[in-house]
């Protein structure tokens, strides 16, 4: 049945109350999280909120899709009364005065926010090591990085500290930790989920998505948070999303794309695990089709130019005048590196030398992915080209950025992409990535569901 449905079922049948579910989560966090460090702050009202949900359930009221489930929220999303620090000293005393739209939707559906998850500082990182509150360990491969930047969310789900997590993904920040921690992570189509209440890394690339122990949980959370709102200026015209209805339809007759480019960029040990996943899809009736993505890798440096410019622009408000501290005075190395790069590009941008050119490369990567997705329903391949390094190992910035080769293209193109565990290499999880069309989440989830069942 899967962890999420089992939990919902026992809450529905009254075997587990929403209050007990919260207490169990708090006990596990108390016991395990000193070592893992996946939460920055816990919600002191969580039990009271669970009691309110419990009372509504006892009165026989319809509560919502997430009734009584315990939810972790990444620290770059506003939750009333909790600190939205982005895991930075810049905002370490900044308390949110409102709920982000996605948090409002989670609460309205009966979800209980248990606390705020650790992350890479301002989402600048792929390892979970750049947080001002200390690195996060990987419960699925202790001593290794959990991936980032939604490091706390990935680790919390892997350790069973909460039921579901909200993460954000700008260049792979949900999918990368999902792969390293052996859980499920989904970056939705750009414009499907409102970003209101998110502290941006790159406004043209960020999307809020789900991290879950299983595909059902990821689909359920995305159904809850998806859909347009007037608070958001860049949104698709979608009222509601439904994925669970077609989740079990299988992949018979679906066209699944694979690319030689994935093999060229990926560690052979990781690729061996992915090949088995592709073979399973073939066995279950999918047609495997080769697709051409000749310039896929060129997206990496273009992305880092675009995101640096957008980040530089977005962080000018952190000047320490009205709240918090001046970002350049207190931030870590990677945040400073991106600010400096963004400032340099903004100053030197004449005749479209850097930023404009990077936006052209974005067009190229987007066109190639769109052309490939005209021939197939989804593209399946690896998530991260290599296995996670040990916590504390020294990597150059370019070596660190190389984790993002295979996740960045989906952000540049605005398409949806999801990750599910495919297997492991020497006990370290490896996630397989399914990339779908614009608003192609339903097909993407069907493929992920088959891959999950057969992993």
């Amino acid at each position: 049945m899967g962890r999420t449905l089992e939990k919902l079922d026992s809450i529905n049948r009254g075997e587990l109350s929403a209050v007990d579910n919260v207490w169990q989560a708090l006990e596990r966090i108390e016991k395990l999280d000193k070592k893992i460090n996946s939460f920055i702050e816990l919600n002191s009202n969580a039990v009271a909120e669970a009691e309110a949900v419990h009372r509504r359930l006892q009165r026989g009221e319809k509560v919502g899709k997430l009734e009584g489930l315990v939810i972790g929220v990444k620290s770059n999303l506003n939750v009333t009364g909790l600190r939205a620090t982005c895991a930075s000293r810049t905002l370490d005393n900044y308390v949110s005065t409102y709920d982000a739209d996605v948090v409002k939707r989670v609460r309205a559906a009966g979800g209980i926010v248990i606390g705020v998850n650790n992350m890479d500082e301002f989402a600048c990182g792929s390892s979970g090591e750049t947080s001002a509150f200390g690195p996060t360990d990987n419960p699925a491969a202790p001593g290794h990085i959990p991936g980032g930047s939604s490091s706390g969310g990935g680790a919390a789900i892997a350790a069973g500290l909460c039921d579901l997590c909200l993460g954000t993904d700008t260049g792979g920040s949900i999918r990368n930790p999902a792969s390293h921690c052996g859980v499920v992570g989904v970056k939705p189509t750009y414009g499907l989920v409102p970003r209101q209440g998110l502290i941006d890394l790159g406004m043209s690339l960020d999307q809020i998505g789900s991290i879950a122990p299983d595909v059902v949980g990821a689909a359920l959370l995305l159904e809850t948070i998806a859909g347009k709102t007037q608070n958001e200026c860049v949104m698709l015209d979608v009222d509601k999303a439904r994925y669970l209805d077609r989740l079990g339809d299988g992949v018979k007759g679906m066209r699944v794309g694979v690319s030689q480019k994935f093999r060229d960029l990926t560690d052979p040990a990781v690729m061996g695990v992915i090949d088995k996943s592709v073979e399973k899809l073939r066995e279950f009736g999918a047609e495997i089709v080769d697709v051409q993505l000749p310039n896929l890798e060129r997206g990496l440096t273009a992305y880092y130019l675009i995101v640096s410019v957008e980040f530089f622009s977005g962080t000018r408000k952190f000047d320490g005048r009205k709240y918090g501290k001046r970002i350049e005075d207190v931030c870590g190395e990677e945040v400073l590196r991106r600010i400096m790069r963004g400032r340099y590009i903004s100053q030197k941008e004449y005749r479209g030398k850097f930023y404009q050119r990077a936006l052209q490369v974005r067009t190229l990567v987007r066109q190639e992915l769109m052309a490939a997705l005209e021939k197939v329903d989804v593209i399946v391949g690896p998530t991260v080209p290599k296995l996670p390094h040990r916590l504390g190992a020294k990597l150059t910035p370019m070596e660190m950025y190389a984790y993002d080769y295979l996740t960045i293209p989906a952000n540049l193109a605005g398409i949806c992409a999801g990750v599910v565990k495919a297997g492991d290499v020497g006990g370290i999880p490896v996630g397989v990535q399914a990339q779908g069309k614009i608003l192609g989440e339903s097909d993407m989830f069907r493929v992920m569901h088959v891959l999950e069942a057969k992993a």
Partner: protein
Amino acid sequence: MKEIERSAQEVIDSFVEAAKDLPELKETYYNQEAYNVVSPDGEPTPEKERAEFRKRFIADMPGSDDQGNLKVEVAKWAER
């Protein structure tokens, strides 16, 4: 600091090298063309909700003067 500056520059140099043979194309700023920039005004927030928001804001703000106004810390770069 010099090392951070150097590594910040490294990606720009790699990009220039990677993009040199690529064709000129139209730039993609946002992936979706449908912007909701002229969304109609909704109903104003109820006074009760606004009062609660003010209360929360005042409770959370780092400092206030005798009249309850937000006390702003002046950024270092603005000091003479």
